[in-house]
């Protein structure tokens, strides 16, 4: 039991100590509240991909922390992010998950905004002072919006490091999966699988980048089914730990990279569609880069705090309360490839992911059980020390570890600790 003074929110070094993580971090509502103030409302948060709003007037509703925002394509082609709130009396403006609108009209008193957020008319204008300027009542833009390869991030804080600085070395990993498209572009369509679980949001990134540590335990049947269908033996990755797979990058990011692992060749000859794809890839990237991109699994990655990429999709982590989280699984399609290959990706995605998949649900169930486990305070410390004796930190601040090491978790928590102490990335 911590002494009362050490329990004060703000002294996070007492809760995050090298390889020891305190259980209260997952169950204390005051800590969740502080996370909103010092993480979600400070850093860059992933909102969506620009292909989710392809046409002028398209919008999607998203959240930054608990704050509703809307991502909207203007008539000028620009994608903007606004607080999703009427400037009159604060009503929810864009209420559908996604829609196309000619104008944004508040259902309450009819205040109307353009697709670029300017106020077109308050209703019953004669009731307002002539000096009232419409310019003062446009939709409030979220202060910082930026994108990389079409992935749009925003921050409700006007100050902070640039997106480029925040992503840092993660840009290289984003490139590795976007470059699977011979057009160098991905597409996220309207379909999305939405899931809720009774657990803290942080269990999710912790679980996401360790497929070969927990995989043989909780995903045993999925690996078995996959192996039967494809001839690929996933168990060999677990039996023989290899170095330089689990990485952290400065900024709280994490990577799981199997490009160094030997993969068995597929047990089927390539289809005509696949051959056409490889030809297009070679035309854009050349033979060697195409071979690299198409004969390995692109690295799995986590961009702090809420974006995950795993094979078939990108995933958004949405905190709801200290013990409830929503997860959105958005399959990623490749522009410029034969339809058949994108359809194959979709079927592969449905094998693993979403509430009815064969892989993700075992992770979700384990997180719900974890939330129950950490209610027990007998020895209120998690131990994330695997691989600590062989910790390798690189000159750029990244760390690299073996297949089942927990160096990435230690780095995630160090970054979290810095932010929660108020010594953030500003």
């Amino acid at each position, binding site marked *: 039991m911590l002494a009362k003074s050490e329990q004060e929110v703000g002294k996070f070094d007492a809760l995050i100590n090298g390889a020891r993580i305190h259980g209260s971090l997952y169950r204390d509502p005051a800590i969740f509240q502080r996370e909103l103030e010092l993480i979600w409302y400070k850093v860059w948060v992933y909102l969506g991909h620009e292909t989710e709003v392809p046409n002028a007037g398209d919008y999607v509703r998203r959240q930054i922390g608990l704050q509703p925002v809307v991502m909207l394509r203007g008539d000028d082609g620009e994608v903007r992010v606004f607080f999703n709130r009427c400037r009159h009396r604060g009503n929810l403006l864009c209420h559908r998950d996604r829609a196309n609108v000619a104008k944004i009209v508040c259902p309450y008193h009819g205040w109307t905004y353009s697709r670029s957020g300017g106020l077109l008319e308050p209703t019953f204008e004669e009731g307002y002072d002539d000096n009232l300027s419409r310019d003062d009542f446009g939709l409030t833009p979220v202060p910082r919006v930026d994108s990389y390869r079409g992935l749009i991030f925003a921050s409700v804080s006007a100050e902070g490091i640039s997106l480029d600085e925040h992503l840092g070395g993660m840009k290289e990993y984003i490139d590795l999966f976007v470059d699977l498209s011979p057009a160098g572009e991905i597409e996220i369509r309207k*379909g999305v*699988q939405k899931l809720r679980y009774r657990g803290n949001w942080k269990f999710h990134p912790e679980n996401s980048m360790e497929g070969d540590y927990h995989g043989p335990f909780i995903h*045993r049947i999925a690996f078995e*089914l996959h192996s039967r269908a494809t001839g690929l033996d996933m168990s060999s990755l677990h039996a023989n730990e290899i170095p330089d797979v689990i990485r952290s990058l400065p900024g709280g990011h994490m990577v799981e990279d199997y490009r160094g692992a030997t993969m068995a060749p597929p047990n089927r000859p390539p289809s005509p569609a696949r051959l056409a794809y490889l030809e297009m890839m070679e035309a854009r990237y050349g033979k060697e880069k195409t071979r690299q991109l198409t004969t390995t699994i692109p690295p799995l990655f986590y961009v702090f705090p809420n974006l995950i990429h795993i094979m078939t999709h990108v995933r958004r982590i949405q905190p709801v309360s200290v013990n409830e989280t929503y997860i959105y699984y958005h399959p990623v399609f490749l522009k410029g490839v034969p339809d058949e290959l*994108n359809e194959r990706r*979709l079927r592969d995605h*449905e*094998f693993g992911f979403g*509430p009815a998949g064969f892989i993700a649900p075992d992770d*979700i169930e384990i997180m719900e059980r974890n939330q129950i486990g950490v209610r027990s305070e007998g020895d209120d410390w998690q131990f994330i020390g695997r691989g600590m004796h062989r910790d390798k930190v690189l000159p750029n601040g990244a760390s690299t570890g073996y297949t089942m090491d927990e160096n990435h978790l230690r780095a995630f928590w160090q970054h979290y600790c810095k932010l929660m102490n108020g010594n953030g990335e500003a």
Partner: protein
Amino acid sequence: MADAAIEQFLYREARLMDEGKYREWLSLWTDDAIYWVPCSDDDTDPRRDVSLIYDNRERLVQRVDRLLSGTVLALDPRPLMRRVVSNIEIEADAGSDVTVASNFILAHARWDTQQIWAGRSLHKLRRDGATFKIVFKKVMLVNAEQEIPLLQFIV
């Protein structure tokens, strides 16, 4: 009467799903099976946009193998389920194939929670002697567009 036979078939399918008798449930399907649970309300093209479930026969077998493997965490403890199938309407009858719509409401009890799931099913059934085989089943969940808990059973 034909309608009574269809009703009895749907009730039997419901009982097999409730009781986790998935191998027997699988034997109700043809080889050109499609089992589809969309995650949207509007008309999705399952070849272009994601679904919760879009299984051909091969995937359906994998699904059943997994549910019966004894290693699925979400099935330990085992959920207890019971559904009501009702509002049965014959939509089309082409002799060999009959299309039938029905509603269901399902109670699912596990841990400390009872969940209610509900929706409308569209079955395309192929006559097989005195009984039927399922060629196509689409389940339109009422909560298809919401953030839903794990769906680790058959609807």
